[in-house]
């Protein structure tokens, strides 16, 4: 699913973001990417999205070598990936529904399907009652759930999240993590960058540790606190 082969990323002679990193994530896996600030977590995510190209090494995502991906192929490639940011990146002048509809429009989803899909995905993150609210009217946790709903709207095979709980308190973080876990149970591979050790401990998934651009020790955590009952998210898949 995701393979890094001896990837090095230098921005200039003195600024090395990643140094000889090789990593692998299987299809359907949930992987944490952690390490201190400046360790190279965001660089890895940007490389996967092909916002950056490696200075050395090869990256293969879902069977595609990103070095050979043409500029014209990038949109189709990115449509298969759901991206979640620490600062949500919602469009504040648009309602929750419009934020989702906007993405569906640019993805070419027929307009007649927008409402149905938006409602379904918002119900999955338990925000279907806030369809017409504007982002500033929502709490941080709600905004992040909308952002996740937006990432999920196109049934991505891969979800990558950059510090998605960075602006949230522990309770809201748990809610958000629950949504990622459920998406993972539905089959999406999840790669989540965070430096929240408590979150990693509570979630209990494989961890890739980065420090100063180099790969540290990988630790497999025990799965913990998986959902015990099928949630609304599971029901969404049947729509």
């Amino acid at each position, binding site marked *: 699913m995701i393979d890094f082969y001896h990837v090095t990323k230098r*921005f200039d002679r003195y600024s090395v973001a990643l140094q000889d990193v090789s990593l692998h994530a299987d299809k359907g896996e949930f992987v944490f990417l952690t390490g201190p600030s400046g360790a190279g977590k965001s660089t890895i995510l940007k490389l996967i*999205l*092909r*916002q*950056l*190209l490696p200075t050395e090494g090869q990256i293969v995502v879902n069977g595609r070598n990103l070095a050979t991906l043409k500029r014209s192929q*990038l*949109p*189709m*490639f*990115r*449509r*298969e*990936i759901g*991206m979640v940011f620490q600062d949500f*990146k919602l*469009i504040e002048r648009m*309602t929750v*529904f*419009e934020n989702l*509809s*906007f*993405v*569906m*429009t*640019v*993805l*070419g989803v*027929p*307009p*007649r399907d*927008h*409402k*149905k899909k*938006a*409602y379904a995905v918002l119900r999955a993150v338990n925000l*279907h009652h806030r*369809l*017409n609210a504007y982002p500033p009217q929502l709490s941080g946790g709600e905004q992040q759930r909308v952002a996740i709903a*937006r990432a999920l709207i*196109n049934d991505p095979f891969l979800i990558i999240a950059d510090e998605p709980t960075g602006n949230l308190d522990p309770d809201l973080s748990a809610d958000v993590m629950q949504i990622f876990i459920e998406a993972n149970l539905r089959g999406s591979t999840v790669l989540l960058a965070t430096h929240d050790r408590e979150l990693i401990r509570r979630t209990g998934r494989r961890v890739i540790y980065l420090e100063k651009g180099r790969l540290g020790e990988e630790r497999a955590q025990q799965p913990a606190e998986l959902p015990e009952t099928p949630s609304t998210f599971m029901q969404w898949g049947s729509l």
Partner: protein
Amino acid sequence: MTADSGERPLGVFGYFVHEAVRRLWVYKRTSMVAIGMIAIALMTLGSFLLISENLNRAVDRWQGQSQITVFLTRDATPAQIDAARSFLTREPELSKFTFVSREAAYAKFRKHFTQLAPVLDDLDQNPFPPSFEVQLDEVKVNDPPFAKLVAGLRRVDGVDDVQLDWQWVSRLRRIASVLSLVGLIAGGVLAVAAAFTIANVIRLTMFLYREEIDIMRLVGATEATIRGPFLLEGIFQGMCGGVLAVALLYGLFRGVHALATGPASALLWEFLFSEFIPWPTALALIGGGVAAGFFGSWISVREAREEKAG
């Protein structure tokens, strides 16, 4: 199960149009600057075209490229008229002629210069002399034997003047061409300036929307989808500028028409403002605005490619 959202979702083209119109409205002040620039450029061009087209039309109406007019004295006797007719008949090059009596000249003037008809009503008598309109096979103004012939015609008893009509016709045509050229150059320069104004407005809009553009790229929007609304915004600005220019030009045309009440103004009206520019020219002006808008916005959006993955 239906979602109760306020607005109807849009397809890609609907999204382009909706966004372009919305941004025109949200940034109406900057948009108005761009639209105003386009309107000024096209109105300048349109004004020159209006005048030159009317000039050409007037010249066409008095078509005399191969004609001379032999004016007799107002009190020419039938014998003098016959003498002039005999001279013309004798010369094969001048033998195609028409006699225009004083009454016919009066009627012709009233027909062609309707605005000046009241002036004629104020006169006690018919001011027009009788004349011969001579059609020539070709223009021979620089031909010495022909000049000699004209000089002989001038010496015929009762002939007051011989006007070589094609001289002023060609001068008027030259003026019309120069006016068109000046209009094209001035309008073209202003249109390029207007296009760059639109480019800057679009650049500013793209800067304000950079976060949305980033989001669109990350969710997999194609460059065409990202750039479409901005291109359309420029096209709309150009089109609005073009429509405004034609509307203002028409207002100017009607204004001149309303002001042209005195005889002196009427003559100016007759020459320069007899008819509004034909609709294909008006459409071409609007099309010019659209082209300038497209060019301006295209300059900006082509700069806004996603930075090459470094």
